[in-house]
């Protein structure tokens, strides 16, 4: 009897013990586009005849000492709060190293190269779940100098600003630029982290906010979101599933055509029913499984883009 009670208690407490470890978002500091443009760290590329400008993080972090110091200081302050960040310079180096290694990797018997789809190559870039953009400008009035400093935390997948700190420091006659910059970073960091804390608190209470796209492979199967099942269109079937499985039924069906459903601000729970951490891939996989059985019997493929975005593509694998 005693053993049974202990076993039952252990079973009941097991999910509780497993909870409390939601997937941690990754943060990385990058220079803001405006800062890169003002300091000449943009590269141009030709996109079908149109010239586009993109920031050159590698060049910026390798040649600008002030940026290097600011990124290092922000990383240090965040690590002190128990939240180490992804390092931009190491990420850039590691991406280049991986690309070189992948090119040289072949199988011993057949000499085959590593398989990589065009999508894999596209996704292989410096990324984090929250990008912390930093920018500053030096203001000079006569002999006095001051710094206008901006720090913005952007959720990379929902494109929302989740934290920010901005302001101009006290003008100084004598302080050198690195000192003024260090003061600006130290001064603004607490305001920034308190907003980040509020964002994480909201995430714990209302679930993680993600974006989900449901699309259809153009494979000539004739499948569309207007296909009816027991009188309900496929759009309604998926919409109802979202309503049932999101936290407090919170989500937004922003676009719905016969070929694309775009769900925004989808609040997914932090934990699965077995107590393990939930992520966007798991959440969308649940939808994939739901659609794979009768009466729908639809084969589909899940593609994830970090913690916060996933595509479900119906029609084939």
């Amino acid at each position, binding site marked *: 009897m005693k053993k049974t009670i202990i076993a039952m208690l252990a079973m009941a407490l097991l999910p509780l013990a497993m909870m409390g470890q939601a997937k941690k978002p990754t943060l990385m500091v990058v220079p803001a586009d405006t800062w890169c443009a003002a300091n000449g760290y943009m590269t141009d590329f030709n996109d079908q005849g149109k010239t586009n400008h993109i920031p050159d993080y590698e060049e910026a972090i390798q040649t600008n000492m002030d940026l290097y110091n600011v990124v290092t200081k922000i990383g240090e302050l965040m690590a002190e*709060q128990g939240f180490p960040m992804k390092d931009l310079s190491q990420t850039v180096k590691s991406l280049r190293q991986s690309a070189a290694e992948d090119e040289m990797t072949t199988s011993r018997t057949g000499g085959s190269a590593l398989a990589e789809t065009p999508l894999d190559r596209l996704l292989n870039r410096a990324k984090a779940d929250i990008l912390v953009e930093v920018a500053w400008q030096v203001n000079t009035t006569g002999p006095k100098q001051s710094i206008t400093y901006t720090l913005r935390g952007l959720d990379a997948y929902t494109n929302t600003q989740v934290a920010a700190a901005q302001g101009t420091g*006290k003008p100084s006659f004598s302080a050198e630029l690195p000192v003024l910059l260090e003061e600006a970073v130290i001064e603004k960091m607490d305001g920034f982290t*308190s907003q980040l804390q509020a964002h994480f608190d909201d995430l*714990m209470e209302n679930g993680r906010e993600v974006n989900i796209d449901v699309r259809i492979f153009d494979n000539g199967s004739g499948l569309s979101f207007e296909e009816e099942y027991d009188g309900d269109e496929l759009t309604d079937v998926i919409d109802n599933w979202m309503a049932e499985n999101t936290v407090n039924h919170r989500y937004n069906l922003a676009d719905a055509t016969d070929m694309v459903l775009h769900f925004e601000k989808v609040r997914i729970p932090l934990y699965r029913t077995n107590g393990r951490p939930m992520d966007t891939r798991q959440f969308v996989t649940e939808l994939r499984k739901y659609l794979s059985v009768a009466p729908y019997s639809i084969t589909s493929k899940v593609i994830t883009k970090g913690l916060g975005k996933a595509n479900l593509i119906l029609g084939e694998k």
Partner: protein
Amino acid sequence: MKHLAKLLKRHISRIVLMACVLTFALPTLADDLPDYQIEGAGTGSQGTYLVRVSVLSKKSKVSDDEIGRCAIHGVLFRGFASKENRQQQKPLAGSPMVEMQQKAFFDDFFKSAYQNYYQMVSGSRQVVKAGKQYKVTSVVTVSKDQLRKDLVAADVIKGLNTGF
């Protein structure tokens, strides 16, 4: 027993109201503190806040300990600003409500533990007579990083890492 249950049922709203009144009427930590003002005094070294605390008192002698206690209270629950130094910091505890919510912890904390988190800046004390009162001002260094770490460890406030 039945009679007691009936009595409770009949007066439950009054009992709840009384409990609320008693909770909020209890002396709060702030009641023990002297009247004080807090403002930023420039950027402190890493991990610290530099604040200027002015205590209003009938006596010109205000102890360093009293000023330090006000500095810690202000940093935790009021936050501070300074137009001159272009500074603004929110309360370290997140909200002034935390003082009420964690009353037992802070009652104990403000008995002596707070003394580990501040240091007076020597030579900064000023005493000015303002009407019938004295305004005693000092600049205080508050070890805010250590204070935050210890409060997170004691589960009084949340850290960035909480839940992950």
